[in-house]
């Protein structure tokens, strides 16, 4: 009985939220419903677990979820999903509440949920999906997740023999889940024009099988590329089951199995999302690659990592990074470094304030290689934020940036940030800062426009 009360409460809350504030609709109903029936997710009916997919990992969950949903819907499949990215149990519950009948019955071809990697076992206990897509397992939010092995150990018990795993052939840690599992589908990306190598002094990672050194023959993305272990036979397969080839960033095209695809976002890390999506839609839903291809042309990623702001004749390119996540920082650095035109670089990732205690960690920047950015055409660097701006400036100096090129102001004041940007000769501005600061800048511009 408590399930039905929870379900109906959830449905009423969803209706109210839709009227009052749609932005709170991703989690709230599920959260409240779970207070009444803590295991309500396990009580929904008519879910074929063979048609349930969890998408987990450090980076790329939301984009992969969005793209898979998009391709399936373009191919007339019905999907229940948490597209807004609420990836804990309440988010999954909210999505199921929205989609179910008043008696808790669900009618969909597939159930695809982005799931937080740390909380996946909790969700799995109530919804034992038979399919998991693991994008990658990398350094991320250390205050919460510690080290990648901490997350690996959380996920390992869920990776049973009857689980079908979709794994990234080019990411050593997540690929190792397939080492002793027979039901594995691999995806990967061939070497391309943006592939790179790193110096010996920059650490790679330990082999998840023997503890030796993982050597990357090349990287397609930070921590992702063709690899082998220096000490045992663990290595990436020469070709994944779903391999993206002929990546042409300029013309925004790639191929998979000889079929040509449009590349909606011509950024290296997105290629793995494309490969993962193709693997899933074919293996899980039987959508042939030739039928998936048209969907790429119309794909729009919600909540991506890149946004543009026009201000006083200057184009401010906001590069969103994830907290304490060197891979997203490195991706942003690579994008800036590959821009051959003169630019200003504004670095304002401040103290980490999402978790208590707040703290001033910037060590993740030393997992990144700034040298190409330091060698590129940067007119001025601007380091700002409370407390950590000096450490950001120091990081740049360690990368070889001359001190006279760096302006350091301990501030989060949006007017001050805009003033410094105003002072740059170039109109090409890159900005890295936390989302709340950027939101403040957008709000300020909107107010100015109204005035």
């Amino acid at each position, binding site marked *: 009985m408590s399930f039905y009360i929870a379900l109906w409460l959830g449905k009423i809350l969803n209706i109210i939220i839709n009227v009052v504030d749609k932005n709170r609709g991703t989690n709230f109903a599920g959260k409240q419903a779970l207070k009444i029936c803590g295991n309500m997710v396990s009580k929904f009916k008519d879910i074929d677990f063979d048609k349930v997919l969890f998408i987990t990992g450090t980076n790329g969950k939301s984009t992969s979820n969005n793209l898979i949903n998009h391709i399936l819907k373009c191919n007339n499949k019905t999907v229940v999903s948490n597209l807004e990215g609420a990836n804990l149990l309440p988010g999954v519950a909210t999505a199921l509440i929205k989609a179910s009948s008043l008696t808790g019955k669900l009618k969909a071809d597939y159930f695809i949920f982005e799931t937080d990697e740390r909380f996946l076992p909790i969700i799995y206990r109530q919804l034992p999906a038979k399919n998991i897509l693991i994008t990658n397992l990398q350094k991320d939010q*250390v205050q919460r997740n510690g*080290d990648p092995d901490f997350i690996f150990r959380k996920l390992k018990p869920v990776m049973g023999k009857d689980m079908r795993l979709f794994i990234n052939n080019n990411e050593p840690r997540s690929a190792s889940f397939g080492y002793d599992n027979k039901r594995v589908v691999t995806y990967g990306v061939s070497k391309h024009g943006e592939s790179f190598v790193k110096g010996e002094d920059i650490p790679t990672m330990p082999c998840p099988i023997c*503890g030796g050194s993982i050597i990357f023959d090349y990287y397609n993305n930070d921590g992702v590329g063709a690899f082998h272990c220096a000490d045992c036979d663990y290595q990436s397969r020469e070709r994944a089951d779903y391999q993206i080839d002929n990546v042409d960033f300029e013309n925004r095209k790639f191929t998979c199995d000889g079929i040509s695809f449009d590349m909606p976002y011509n950024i290296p890390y997105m290629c793995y999302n494309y490969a993962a999506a193709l693997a899933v839609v074919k293996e899980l839903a039987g959508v042939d690659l030739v039928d998936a291809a048209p969907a790429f042309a119309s794909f729009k990623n919600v909540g991506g990592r890149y946004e543009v702001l026009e201000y006083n004749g200057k184009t401010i390119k906001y590069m969103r990074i994830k907290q304490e996540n060197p891979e997203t920082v490195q991706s942003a650095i690579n994008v800036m470094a590959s821009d051959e035109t003169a630019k200003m670089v504004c670095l304002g990732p401040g103290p980490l304030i999402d978790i208590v205690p707040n*703290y001033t960690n910037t060590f993740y920047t030393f997992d990144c290689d700034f040298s190409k950015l330091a060698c590129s055409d940067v007119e001025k660097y601007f380091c700002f934020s409370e407390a950590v701006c000096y*450490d950001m400036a120091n990081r740049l100096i360690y990368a070889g940036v001359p001190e006279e090129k760096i302006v350091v102001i301990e501030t989060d004041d949006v007017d001050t940030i805009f003033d410094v940007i105003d002072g740059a000769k170039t109109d090409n501005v890159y900005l890295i800062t936390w989302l709340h600061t950027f939101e403040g800048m957008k709000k300020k511009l909107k107010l100015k426009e109204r005035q």
Partner: protein
Amino acid sequence: MNTQIRIAVLFHNTFYIHGDRGNILALQKMSKAANIPVTVEYIDDFASSFEPDEYDIIFCGPGEISCFARVRDYLAAKKEELKGFIEKGKVLLVTGTTMCLFGNETLRCDGSKFTGLGIINSNFTEREYPYGNDLYYKAKYNEKEMEIFGSQIQMMDVISEDKPFGKLIYGMGNSKESEFEGVQLNNSVFTNTLGPLLVLNPWLTKEILNVVLTNKATGEIMPDLDMSLELKSLEAKKKFTEKKQVE
């Protein structure tokens, strides 16, 4: 200066987390500023031998406990040499969770035990969840009192019989109950301080290099260097910490 400093970095692909390669960059940067040549050797090959005494500084960065056994087995053959290295006053710097490798025993959350090298008289208990915070304490190194500021991502509690490295001002010490941070044996330091430690605290970096110069009996000492940026950082973060404590 005519002296050359030799640094060994142990298994940097295994002990790869938290940006601690920055500690090597800090030693290189400061040595360069003082015109001291530095060589850095990466000891990564389990099949090759490693002679601690060939080096002035040995660095072992933070890693994951699941990867320690193989390195422990490799270093076990060099345990007495490593103890001698420390006793001679050379510098072994170990950061983060890798302290467990050099300790006695680590009790893991799943009930298993990891036996370390037993070079420091410390036992460890793995935490169920990591503890992350700023870490700020007073330390005395090479007879110099100093403030140290860094970050901590503490995966284990430390119970140690050895002399601590620092006395806590803010953050979590070796354990929740402890007012001390890390372990110091002679000039060797085993600490949970991340940051990287030697980037954020160049006054410590300078004294480590002074220790090396003293060990080499060249009569040289490190010159005064500009640390104004790091001092501004320290003051800003101290203020941030004070604000946290009030809130």
